[in-house]
Every structure is written in C-alpha cells, then in structure tokens.
C-alpha cells in the first residue's frame, strides 16, 4: 500500500497499464512533455516516448475519432479530454460512433477505448472548466460511465476500464485530485464495474453520491450522527453499469433517500435514481426522495460555492427527509 492523492493514483494506473501492455497508449492535448494540465500523465512521456504518449493537435473530435481508429486496429488508446467542458466537439464521435460501433457492425468492430476527463466545479474554473455533464453520456447505450471518489478506486476502476473491451468514459473529480489522499494497493488491482461501495453503513437514511460529492456527503453523515441519526453513504462509482441492487437494497433497509450530485437537477442522474426507487422501492420509502444538486443554470464563476452542493445543504435535505412521513 502507498499513500497517494487521487491524481497520483490515476498516474500510477496509467503507467502500470502501459508497462503491462504495449498496446495501451495515451493521446490528448498537453499530455506529453507537459504531463497534462493536471499532471495526470506526468512522467509517462519520458518513460514511454512520443509514440505512446501522443500530444495531439487541438481537436477533441480528432482525438476521439483517431482513438476509435486506433482501437479498430487493435490498440487500446486512452484519450484525454482536458476538461469535460471541452468534450462536446467529440460528442458526435462518442455518441454516434464510439458507442454504436459494436452494435451496428454485429460485433465485428468493437471499440476498446477509454476517454479520461476531469469534471466538476470547485476550482474557480467558471462555466467552461467546471461542468458535470455525466448524464448526457449515461443516457447513451453502449457507453460505460465511471466516476471514482478515492485514490484506490481511481486506480482500480481505471485499470478495469483499460481492460474493458467496450468504451468507457472515465470522469475524474478534479476538485479532489489533490484534496483527497488514501492508501492504494500496489500492482494491478481491478475494482469491478457495477458494484457500489458502502462508504459508511447506517440504518436511518441513505445518501447516494459519487465523485467530488462524496466528501461533503460523508461530512453530512458525521453531522447527522452527532444528532443521533445513523446515515448510510453509498458511493455509486459506476453510473453505467449501475449497481441497481445496492441502491434498492439500501433504501429497503433505511426507507429514506437523499441523492447528491453537482450537475443540474433537471434530468440529472439523480432523476434516474429517484425513478428506480419509485419503481422498485416504493413501499419501503417512508418519505419523499430528496435531491441535492447543482442548480438549473449554467455554472457560475464567482458564485460557485453557492452553486455546488455542500455538507450543510445535504444535512438540510436529510433532516427534511427524516422529519417527514
């Protein structure tokens, strides 16, 4: 075990995968000699050279389209999109091409591609360095969507993503790239997709969160514990595939649910969770499902702390849930 930050864990995961498999390569903007703007690819260019750590021209559609072509040939490209806010030029490539190649070719052309991208607010990045648009992608069949919240999961889920024969969008909570440290197992250690993590067990209420919303969710659970409430916190880890069984089972136990994400509320991923609970855990619910989310506005620069869910808002929602029904 080594104590690492989340971004260091990603860097380790990339390096180990590249050492283990010569077909794995990295491409993106500034990923080479600069090591990525967040240093996620630090040292890789020096170790593996420019043929495996490829600085591309500034074109997201080109990065993803070329990664698809490399995968069609049999390589295992890991494309970095510098900020999730910049992924939209590649949206067509991801949604129309990457996610549909296997299906439309009858399995003749699978696409072994990982797209890594830092997402989310809290770094004073304004409208275009803060977005949390995971729901657009979770809506697309053929694409897996993964969001770690701890260094161990970051490396373990990334390793699984790199071995996955299907396209994976790997979203990295950049707000906690360095704010979170943790023990990370040495060597290849895969964290399976579709298995939520019970970050804290409890009986009275469940908080569902992922990525950078995990730390405030755990703080909220701590606050509520001081009030005598036993709160379960579940880290979804993979939105697609979703561990639906864990979601339903937890609410069958606690009867109350608070869903937290920093993306806007309307049609956010929380809406899907709420719908699943309404369909499959309705008779276990003791009070209405609460959502604590970003607002239905563009992401604001100066007011980002007002926009982003925090422990206080989560506690407020939890109290409302606990006092109802």
């Amino acid at each position, binding site marked *: 075990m080594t104590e690492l930050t989340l971004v260091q864990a990603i860097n380790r995961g990339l390096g180990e995968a590249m050492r283990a498999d010569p077909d794995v*390569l990295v491409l993106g903007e500034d990923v080479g000699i600069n090591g990525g703007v967040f240093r996620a690819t630090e040292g890789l260019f020096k170790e593996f050279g420019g*043929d495996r750590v490829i600085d*591309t*021209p500034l*074109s997201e*559609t*080109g990065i*993803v*389209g*070329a*990664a*698809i*072509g*490399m*995968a*069609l*040939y*049999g*390589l295992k*490209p890991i494309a970095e999109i510098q900020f999730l806010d910049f992924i939209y*030029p590649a949206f*067509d*490539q991801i949604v*129309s*091409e990457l996610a*549909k*190649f*296997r*299906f*439309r*070719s*009858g*399995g*003749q*052309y*699978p696409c072994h591609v990982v797209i890594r991208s830092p997402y989310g607010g809290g770094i004073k990045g304004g409208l275009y360095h803060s977005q949390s648009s995971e729901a657009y992608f979770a809506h697309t*069949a*053929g694409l*897996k969507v993964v969001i770690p919240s701890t260094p161990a999961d970051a490396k373990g889920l990334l390793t699984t993503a790199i071995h*996955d*024969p*299907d396209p994976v969008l790997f979203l990295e909570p950049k707000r906690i790239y360095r704010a979170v440290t943790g023990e990370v197992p040495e060597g290849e250690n895969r964290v399976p997709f579709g298995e939520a993590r019970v970050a804290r067990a409890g009986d009275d209420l469940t908080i569902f969160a992922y990525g950078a919303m995990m730390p405030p969710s755990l703080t909220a659970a701590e606050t509520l514990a001081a009030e005598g409430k036993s709160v379960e916190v579940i880290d979804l880890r993979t939105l697609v595939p979703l561990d639906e069984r864990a979601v339903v089972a937890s609410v069958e136990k606690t009867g109350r649910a608070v869903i937290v994400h920093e993306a806007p509320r309307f049609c956010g991923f929380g809406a899907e969770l709420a719908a699943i609970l309404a369909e499959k855990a309705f008779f276990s619910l003791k009070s209405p499902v609460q959502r604590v989310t970003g607002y239905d506005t563009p992401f604001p620069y100066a007011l980002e702390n007002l926009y982003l869910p925090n422990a206080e808002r989560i506690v407020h929602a939890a109290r409302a849930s606990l006092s109802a029904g």
Partner: protein
Amino acid sequence: MTEAPAVVPLDYTAESLEGLLGPEWSPTLVNAFRWMTLARVLDGRMLALQRQGRIGFYGPATGQEAVSVGAALSIGPDDWVFPGLREQLVALARGHSLTTYLHHLFANDLDPARGRQMPCHPTAREVRYVSMSSVIGTQVTHAVGLAYAMKLRRDPSVALAFFGDGATSANDFHAGANLAAVWQAPVVFCCTNNQWAISVPVEHQTRSATLAAKSVAYGMPGERVDGTDLVAVVARLRAAIAVARSGAGPSLLEFVVYRMTPHSSSDDPTRYQSPEFLLEARAHDPYLRTEALLRTLGLADDAQTTAWREESDAAVRAAIETAEAAPPPSPDSMRSDVLAPAPPPAPS
C-alpha cells in the same frame, strides 16, 4: 426527355494503358467492367425493390462505379476501407459475398449486423470494410487513427477514407486531414465529388476552386481526377497509395463524378436539379465510357457485354431470392452487441 448525348470517349491506346496500368492492363479493365456491370444491375433492381416495398431504403451509386471498383483493384488485401454511402462495390469487388450484402439490404437475421442499420450501411470485416454511420464525415478521423496505428506498428498497409463533397464542410474532415498530415499517416483521402449533397450543389458547399485545393493548407498533396475515367482513377490511386505505403504521408484525391440518380430512394431531384446536369452526367457515364473503351480495344463486343449483364442479372436474382427467404431479426438480437458479452466469473 432530350435525346441521350454521345458518351465522351476515353482516349487511351494499348501502349498508353500499358504505361499507366502495367502489363496486366487488359484483364484489369475487363475485371473492373464486370464489377461495374454488377453494380449497375444491382442499383436498378434495388431501386425497383424499394419501390415495391420489399426493401426499406436504397442509396444508388450509379455514376460513381469507376471510383469504387478502381479503389478495390488498387489496394491489397491488408489495406483498409472506410466507406461512405456509395462504396459497397469496394466491398463486393474485394470479395464480400453478394448474398451476404443482400441479407443486409433486406435487414434480415442473416445480415451480419442483424438488420440494425439502414440498407447500404454494410460491415464486412473479412475484407477490412469498416462499419459506417449515417453521420457525414465521421469516418475520416477513424481512418486516420487506424492509419497512424499502422505506422506505429510498422505495418505497411494503408487506409482509404471515402467521403463526398458535402463532407469537406464538416469538422471531421478538417480534423482528420490535419491529424493525418501532422502524423504523416498512411491514408489516402478519396473525396468522391458527385457535385451534390442531397439538394445542395457543390458551389454552395465551398468557395474553393477545387476540393483538392484544400490539401494545400494541410500540407499534403492533392489532385483532382476525372472519377468517371476508370484508367485515371486506378493510375492516380495507385500512385497515392504507393506514396502512403512508402511512409511519405497522406494525400487527397478529389474524384469528380456525376450523381446520376436521386440521392437515395427518398429523394426527388427534379425539385432542384436541371435537366442539363443529367445530360452532362450521361455523357460522362463511367459504365458507358468504360464499355466504349473496351469495344475500341477489342476487349468486348455485343455478345460479350450481354453475357456479362446476364451473369450479373442471374447473380443478383439468386441473391435476392435467398435473402428474401431469410427470417427477420429475432427480437432478442436487439439486445446483443450493445456491449461485449459478460465474461465468465474469475476463478476464486
């Protein structure tokens, strides 16, 4: 309808053909013409079947056959093809089964892609014919990525990326052309300029004097080629492919052709196309131009061309019969191939 104009002849002699196409020039031309005959027969039958409601859609390639067959005969078995809507003849002439293609057109359960795509979107991995979407131009960057992967692996194969005139306005064309040149990737961009993007003429698509001229800004060679001249197509493609294979990078070939049919079975070109265009198109019909050349060279006569047509008629008829008898996709096929089948659990 105005009387059909005389076909503009292809002005080649046996000597010039040997110089351009090598000693095998005569079987090459005959082989190409037989495939063009098949494509012509196929387009006629399929448009009719669509009108009869027996297939759902069809995108004919009439007028563009010289480019497709020229490409198929210019590449090796290890080279890759990234098609657009009208390149199925490349797959067929490389050995993709006509019956399998018909299963695709009928969208039945024996279609390798289980009827998931509209007709004219086949996948044929066995001849390295890559799956395409209906989005214009997206395949360009795929071809570049694959070509660069080959360069990294020191694989001497090349990739051909097909797209139309309309695609040169799309961002993927720009992204792909730029990447290919920066990476010196072994790819040949084959722009089949049929002068129409559905109803929009090419002069509304660009102010460039030619589409080939766009290559200059990317730093690669570009050339405009008469795409209805089979000999020119093969000669120029072979040259560009040799350059790419030698490691000297990508190039852009603009094949000027005439779209002699509606854009697709869903289109009515009388709304936007002048009769003069069709007259000019018919004067440049690649099938008739090739046939006239073969006759001039003594490689074909009436009996021979009739025999080739009958051979294609019979092949298409038999494939239709087989495909029409196949069952529709099973309902559970909708759920397969969305993702890889789940692997068996790891031993504990």
